[in-house]
């Protein structure tokens, strides 16, 4: 009886191959093979019930399962069928784990923390002090900027206003309402408008920053660099510190 069912399945598949698309053939073939196997092997029928309709979906999605079942068909013994069921269980576990791991990872990267490599010389000497030979890797804290709260002197990563695909890492010099003495902007003095901040690289003249494109909207804020995590000997927390002669104007007046 088992042999008859299998033979029927093979014949059916051979008929279908001449007519139909490959995947549908695979599906129909598997259904036939499974029904013939489960007719004769009651132990596997229990597995089939336990797996339920999800098993068929998995088989339909994954080609590997098809090859497993095909090997079982060429050598139809109960051991092989059990292996197939075990393989299916593994596949189900893998798929469900995948559906847990990917959203959790994406959410953590979006909401909590992000790791980024710093390229370019614009933040020397704070980041990348050795130039192009070694790139620093920083931890960007995204949880602390969820309400768009930053301090003057923080190193932040911002989506570049010139190119939405690119992110730039700069130091916050002034917040909204501050008066800034600019370095090479078209106006000598600028009042930072509401909802904007003024960002600059530490390496003046080698940095594409607010001196080129003006104040940046706070909505473009991506994260705050909180730690240098690579190379290991430079592992350090990044503290908010303004460069000595930069900052909003009233602060300079208070100092001098």
């Amino acid at each position, binding site marked *: 009886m088992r042999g008859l069912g299998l033979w029927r399945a093979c014949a059916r598949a051979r008929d279908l191959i001449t007519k139909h698309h490959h995947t549908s053939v695979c599906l129909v073939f598997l259904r036939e093979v499974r029904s013939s196997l489960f007719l004769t092997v009651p132990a596997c029928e229990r597995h089939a019930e336990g797996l339920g309709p999800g098993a068929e979906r998995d088989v339909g999605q994954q080609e590997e399962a098809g090859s497993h079942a095909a090997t079982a068909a060429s050598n139809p013994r109960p051991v092989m069928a059990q292996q197939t069921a075990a393989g299916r269980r593994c596949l189900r576990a893998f798929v469900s784990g995948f559906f847990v791991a990917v959203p959790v990872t994406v959410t953590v990267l979006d909401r909590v923390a992000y790791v980024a490599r710093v390229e370019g010389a614009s933040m020397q000497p704070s980041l990348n002090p050795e130039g192009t030979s070694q790139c620093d890797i920083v931890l960007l804290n995204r949880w602390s900027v969820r309400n*768009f709260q930053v301090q003057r002197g923080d190193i932040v990563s911002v*989506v570049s206003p010139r*190119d939405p695909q690119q992110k730039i890492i700069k130091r916050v010099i002034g917040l909204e309402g501050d008066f800034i003495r600019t370095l090479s902007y078209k106006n000598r003095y600028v009042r930072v408008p509401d909802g904007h901040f003024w960002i600059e690289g530490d390496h003046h003249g080698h940095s594409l920053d607010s001196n080129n494109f003006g104040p940046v909207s706070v909505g473009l804020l991506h994260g705050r660099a909180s730690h240098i995590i690579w190379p290991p000997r430079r592992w350090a927390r990044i503290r908010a510190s303004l460069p000595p002669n930069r900052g909003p104007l009233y602060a300079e007046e208070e100092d001098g």
Partner: protein
Amino acid sequence: MLRSLLGKTLGFVGYTVQYGCIAHCTFEYVGEFVICSGPSMEPTIVNQDIVFSERMSRHLCKIQTGDIVIAKSPFDPNMNLCKRVIGLEGDKICTSGPSDVFKSHTYVPKGHVWLEGDNLRNSTDSRSYGPVPYALIRGRVCLKLWPLHSFGTLSESPTRRITETHHDSD
């Protein structure tokens, strides 16, 4: 007893985290429901309409001229705007109103878009604060869900601002 309680609590927390993460990914990368308020998009979208905004075309940079988008306000990142994209980077835009005698034109800079409301008389948009960075766009409005009698896709711009600019660029 204690162990089973602990296990149940841990399981509950795990499921909460998992579904929270799935919800975040859905809202962040697929789409979200937005309640629009304010008169600036009349008559396309009136006050208290519920629309569905999809996020994929923003992540894939597929925003086109004429799309209605939800964007963060450049002056208050916690506030959102609903406007129509009039020009992409490099487009020539007429910044003056339709009834003005002297037409003034400007070019949208790189990485920015020009947003205007459909209700030109009662809309604070790029004509007052200039072009908006592309990265502030959150999503493209693709479906109107409420009220039910106007369910469906959104109509074309009633203001002929886009055809005008296209004519100019030609």
